[in-house]
């Protein structure tokens, strides 16, 4: 095994691992500051912040010979016998000088900069910079330049690390950004007539180590230190990207990608990034409603029902109606889907269980960097199919359920939605018009909810807790990030109470139960790492 010596500490790295000195030093617990290097992008070694002393140890004699000058750690491969010194006076002085040079023409408008609080220039200056400014230059303003529909550029804050330029060339493959001019006059810009409008453009804001690139959606909305972040999973498509939901007082302000080598690496698409606004839409359904006497006449008004009363009355109404058909939405978590199936079968042991409508738009879109946006716009089709298969091995689809209802095989239906966008047309909804009891649980009003005899609100993606299984069979668990609006019980809470279970809804208990009772979900039995677990792991072995 190759051995690398970091600040006198020997660490072993894998024989076929290709690490640079930053990564090797990180294994040894030494953090080498860097701006331009990013694990997902090519190496340019232009910022000079990661300069360290390196050398090699002769394997035969054990004699260490050091390089006479500092070298960039990002560009230096760590191999057997590599010696890295990260904290010598020479290295410290070099870092202080780099910081000083970067700050010479930086506007230092931290109070109005959105990056303040998570800015590498601030952090590194605090750790490695010097307290006094020797250059007497203060006349800089922060020129602002529009580079695209989602991103704005503060030209003078830029430190020319070119991460954003490399991102558009290597990952999104669209090459909108470029460097204009040379030397001290270097600036980031877009080609005339080609704004930064690719589907991954928001990532350049995350990549920017300083406040040069700003997200227009988030600009000036909130200071970063007020927000709390919850590890979450994006519900926008079946890729199931790992994200951080950043929120304050139950209001989401932005979504950020969370590093997950098995799913999204470092990126998320703009659709997912800005796909949280429906959570705070004023048009969301709130409060449970029941049409008086379960009348199918649409003119009969909905009567508000207290949530505590929903639990027994919904069961009574569905039981009285007779044959039940249930659509389990692929927006639900595995735990919620399993509980809904159990509730349905406890009401009608012959209940027809089907996977809910699976929204699709276009085709899967893969970018040169390997990132794929899926056409299937729901996060948990595989999970829900796996759950339904436990109850009905034929796994009926949504169209089969519509046919089942249309041909008069059901007297009651329970349709779960939670779709952020419109999903059902009048013709399909008409199939449900003559049912004795129709329960619709959705985020927004739809042609179907207009027919409902029971109308229940649903929770948005950040308001749930549980497990989603993405298109590659990777199951990721997540906690609730924000509370739903007043008058909304997340599905899990309703089903938990309808199953007669006590206390607060505990997804972990349900997950364990699902894992114990099925081979498909056996991998969910233990602790699930932050990057998720592959459900096929046991089936392959």
């Amino acid at each position, binding site marked *: 095994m190759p051995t690398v010596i970091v600040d006198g500490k020997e660490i072993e790295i894998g024989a076929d691992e290709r690490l640079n000195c930053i990564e090797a030093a990180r294994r040894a617990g030494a953090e080498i500051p860097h701006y331009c290097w990013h694990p997902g992008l090519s190496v340019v070694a232009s910022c000079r912040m990661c300069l360290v002393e390196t050398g090699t140890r002769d394997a035969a004699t054990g004699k260490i010979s050091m390089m006479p000058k500092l070298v960039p750690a990002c560009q230096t491969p760590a191999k057997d016998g590599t010696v890295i010194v990260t904290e010598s006076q020479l290295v410290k002085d070099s870092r202080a000088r780099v910081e000083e040079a970067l700050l010479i023409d930086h506007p230092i408008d931290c*109070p*109005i900069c959105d990056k303040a609080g998570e800015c590498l220039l601030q952090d590194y200056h605090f750790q490695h910079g010097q307290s006094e400014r020797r250059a007497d230059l203060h006349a800089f303003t922060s020129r602002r330049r529009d580079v695209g529909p989602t991103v704005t550029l503060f030209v003078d804050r830029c430190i020319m690390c070119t991460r954003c330029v490399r991102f558009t060339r290597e990952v999104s493959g669209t090459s909108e950004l470029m460097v204009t001019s040379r030397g001290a006059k270097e600036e980031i810009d877009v080609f005339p007539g080609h704004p930064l409008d690719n589907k991954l453009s928001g990532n350049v804001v995350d990549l920017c180590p300083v406040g040069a690139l700003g997200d227009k959606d988030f*600009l*000036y909305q909130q200071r970063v230190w007020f927000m709390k972040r919850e590890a979450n999973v994006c519900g926008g498509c079946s890729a199931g990207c790992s994200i951080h939901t950043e929120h304050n007082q139950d209001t989401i302000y932005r979504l950020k990608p969370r590093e997950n080598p098995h799913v999204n690496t470092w990126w998320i698409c703009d659709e997912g990034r800005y796909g949280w606004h429906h959570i705070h839409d004023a048009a969301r359904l709130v409060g449970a409603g029941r049409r008086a006497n379960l009348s199918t006449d649409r003119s009969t008004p909905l009567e508000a029902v207290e949530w505590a009363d929903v639990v027994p009355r919904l069961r009574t109404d569905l039981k009285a109606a007779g044959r039940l058909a249930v659509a389990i939405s692929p927006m639900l978590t595995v735990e919620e889907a399993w509980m809904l199936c159990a509730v349905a079968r406890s009401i009608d042991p012959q209940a027809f269980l089907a996977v809910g409508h699976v929204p699709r738009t276009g085709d899967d879109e893969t970018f040169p960097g390997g990132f794929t946006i899926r056409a299937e716009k729901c996060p948990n089709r595989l999970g829900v199919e796996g759950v339904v298969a436990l109850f009905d091995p034929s796994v009926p689809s949504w169209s089969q359920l519509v046919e089942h209802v249309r041909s008069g095989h059901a007297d009651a239906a329970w349709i779960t939605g939670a779709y952020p966008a419109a999903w059902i047309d009048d013709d399909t909804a008409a199939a449900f018009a003559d049912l004795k009891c129709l329960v619709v649980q959705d985020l927004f009003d739809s042609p179907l909810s207009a027919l409902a005899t029971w109308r229940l609100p649903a929770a948005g993606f950040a308001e749930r807790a549980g497990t989603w299984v993405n298109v590659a069979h990777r199951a990721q668990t997540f906690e609730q990030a924000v509370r739903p609006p007043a008058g909304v019980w997340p599905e899990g809470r309703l089903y938990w109470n309808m199953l007669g279970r006590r206390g607060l809804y505990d997804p972990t208990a349900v997950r364990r139960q699902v894992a114990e009772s099925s081979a498909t979900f056996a991998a969910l039995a233990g602790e699930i790492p932050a990057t998720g677990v592959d459900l096929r792991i046991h089936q392959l072995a």
Partner: protein
Amino acid sequence: MKPTDPSVTWIEEKPLGLAERLYLPLFVQGLTTTARHLVSPKLTVSYPEQRPTVGNPLIYRGVHRLNRDQEGRVKCVACFLCATACPAHCIDIVATNSPWPDREKYPESFAIDELRCIFCGMCEEACPVDAIELTSLLDLTGKSREEMIFDKEKLLSVYDMTKDAEPMKSASLGGTL
């Protein structure tokens, strides 16, 4: 902390000296204080008919004001540092793009809940552009809780009201104009 804690140092009470035991010297000392107050000028004022005088308005911590810049615009840049420093969480700011070409960010709304404020002066201390200051206005009254939430216009009007009597502190303290 327990009495047996090693960091506690116990001190014995001194025995009474001759003067203390005689009683009379201390009696005279006490009466002298009383007599001095009888003849000294009165500090009590009949508020509100009479207004108390503030010793040093520069360091007095009364009602807040939002300063204006030379063009009469609000000086605040909506950096939220006052709201961050505030231990009582009484400052609420909504920031947005400024309507002026020479400024980037400004407060769309700026509200201080004067009832929740503890007048510690941390906001004034934190402000990087010397926009928020505490004046020497000390009588703060209102008929409702809503009235005591001072919005941007009201805080600016406090500045207009007090700017002549109390010029912006920043200039004299070497801050921004």
